[in-house]
């Protein structure tokens, strides 16, 4: 049942007392108070709960705690440098790239993973990278423009 799991969250070494089967999502939201990672489907199909695990965008909703032991997790709250937003977040605000914004955290995470690997993506690379994230309000094109802007590619 219970146990201690140690991992790094947004640069800070973190220890959580919980069952290893606990989905990472609930440890982040309810134990660590990091509410920016959001529940959408519980099966990794919508992207609302994406976090970076050792730099890869992955769903926190079906990632058990035991599997992240010793790993580096970055949530939307930790994307930017301390005390500031990530350039992607500034670009999303500049483009007003959201309506309800519930999906935005996961999309920022996917976009950050993309820019880490491909700093100057084409628009179709951005769309392909965001295909694992769903948006229902129809803010897609604004978000794509925002990612291009953050990459110094547009607007």
């Amino acid at each position: 049942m219970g146990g201690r799991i140690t991992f790094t969250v947004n640069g800070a070494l973190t220890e959580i007392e919980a069952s290893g089967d606990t989905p990472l999502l609930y440890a982040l939201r309810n134990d660590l108070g990091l509410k920016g990672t959001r529940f959408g489907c519980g099966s990794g199909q919508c992207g609302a709960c994406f976090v970076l695990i050792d730099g890869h965008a992955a769903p926190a909703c079906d990632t058990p705690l035991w599997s992240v032991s010793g790993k580096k997790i970055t949530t939307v709250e930790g994307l930017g440098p301390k005390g500031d937003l990530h350039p992607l977040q500034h670009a999303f605000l500049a483009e007003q790239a959201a309506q309800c914004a519930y999906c935005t955290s996961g999309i920022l995470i996917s976009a950050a993973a993309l820019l880490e690997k491909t700093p100057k993506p084409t628009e179709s690379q951005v769309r392909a990278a965001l295909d694992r994230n769903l948006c229902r309000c129809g803010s897609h094109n604004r978000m794509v423009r925002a990612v291009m802007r953050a990459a110094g590619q547009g607007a």
Partner: protein
Amino acid sequence: MNAVTDAKLKRPGSLEKNPRLSQWLRVHRDGTVSVYTGKVEIGQGILTALAQIAAEELGLAPERIRMVAADTALSPDEGVTSGSLSIQDSGAALRRACAHARALLLERAAAGLNASIADLRVADGVVQVAGRKTSFWECGGDALFDCEVDDTVTAGLPRDYRVVGQPVPRIDLPDKIAGRPRYLQDMALPGMLFGRVVRPPYGFARLAALDDSPVKAMPGVAAVVREGSFVGVLAEREETAIAAQGALRKAAEWEAGAPLPQDIHAWLKSHASDHKVISEKTDPAAKSRSTSTFEASYAKPYLSHASIGPSSAVAQFQGDKLVVWSQSQGIFNLRRDIALALGMREKDVVVRHAEGAGCYGHNGADDVALDAALLARRSGGRPVQLQWMRDDEFAWAPCGPAMALTLRAGLDSQGNIMDWQHELWSNGHSGRPGRSDTPALVAAWHLARPFERSASINMPLPAGAADRNAIPLYDFPNQRIVNHYVREMPVRTSALRSLGAYANVFAIESFMDELALAARVDPVAYRLRHLKDPRARAVIEAVARRAKWEEWKEAEGRGHGIGFAKYKNLGAYCAVVAEVEVEDEVRVKRLLIAVDVGLVVNPNGVANQIEGGAIQSTSWTLKEQVRLDERGITSLGWEDYPILKFSEVPAVEVELIDRPELPSVGAGEGAQGPTAAAIANAVAHALGVRVRELPLTSERIIAAIERQ
């Protein structure tokens, strides 16, 4: 009664029901102004637009305005945030209230400075005259606003606007994009328990048996709550509540419900219905000039809201009083139905709005609030947070109703439409709380003494519901429009963005193209030939220009199409041109949109709403349908209910036709119908084959080609 007297008696927007100035705003010593509205933020940016209106009339920087989230204990009752009416209802009221408030503040400032109002210099709330100085913050105290709003005080003129009409950034987005807690789902109260509910897998089955003892014994489970067929669980940790929900689902045995019809459109057309002729025009001479007649039937499936974040609520009993935090569109109506379901007095229930994931109509937000309240009755006073799981949302949120439509027309020898008939069959489009004798909340129907489930209804014309936009804006000498209201609901239905307008406009505008083809006239020219309304003509002409309609190059597998409507025949004018490519499936490459919403309060906000609505409508039109077997809804996850993905989203261009001298109307729903029609017409243009049943999937397209 003539129009002038009528206008005098009726106060603007929501002032009619909320006439006290103190209901709308309060000025604080710290240089801020709290503005109260009964309308709620559901991702559409309404709080920003209302703050702009308040700032404009008060003559203040928009940063000074604090929009207060709607609360049944504090806010004006403005009914439901629906129908693209918030700018008309709340905006019009705030405009008047703030104009009156400014006049009162200036009066008091003038008295305090011993000067006349005309001599005052006023800038951002600071008032000066001959070296003497005061401010709104010093003058706004006491009972200054404890009076009725005087709506004869002159409000600002559009030509002088500095804040209204500007693309002011959304006030809620900085928190949401930074990931700071702001959603209802993010609330964390001391001692909070997590709840989940267990519903029958299909339909409205009753609970037959449930051995809940293994779940009660699970570590961390605080309680299993059972009231008749309502089953829920409370746990210390959220993942424990979810695991317990899973175990209870396995253990519960349910009685089978009544089987559902499989061909819903045939069922709607053949089932008992009340029919009503909603519009009729007769001109026998014109009718006799018809030389050819046409008929076509169209269909729209049940649609799901499919918000990315499932519905949630927080509830807590504080002694005998209940506080509910909800993402409902209608907190006052929800309060009434919760009180009814729990046998409480309305005054003992407070409902506070908190922002949730995107809301496109009557989803599960109200239902989950009663779920949370029922669990909170057994939590020993601890607050309860409950978010539905993805499958709860797909199974239990009301669906947008399936609709069947048949249109007929008679053309003269020049192809002019002499006769137009439109019949539609649908369940009701509103099953919202607050409007029936019994609570319109799922859990109330499952209690030990269950409340009766009432049928969803249709609101009357001119706005209408199933028949919204069924009356064409075109000028036909003969027309007959019939609404068949089917009361019995195989699937729970209620309001989804644009209600019946989506299907009616899809059918009308598809049929217009079919007739234009028969008449061998260009679809844009054919529409203009039958349309007098100058604002309607202007959006069609603007979008045709933007799309370079006349320069279109024919190519294998490519097509373009147009769709138009004036939303509700009362609101936004919107024309859309879609450009598509069809191979194995339809790809919408580009949407060009022209829209006229009267005076534009926030151009970025209007563009965002129109663009978002068009993309959502593209998703409905190409992909979406709720799947059913004879026991109930089977599309319970994203794999069974796919929506448009980033790589499938078309480019969208929006052109706003600003009309500063005309009243503002809402933008939220105007694009739904025209987009669907434009895409369907573009597909027909690309293929030479008409698909009349939504969504326009490859199976439907192949079937249409084979039928030809």
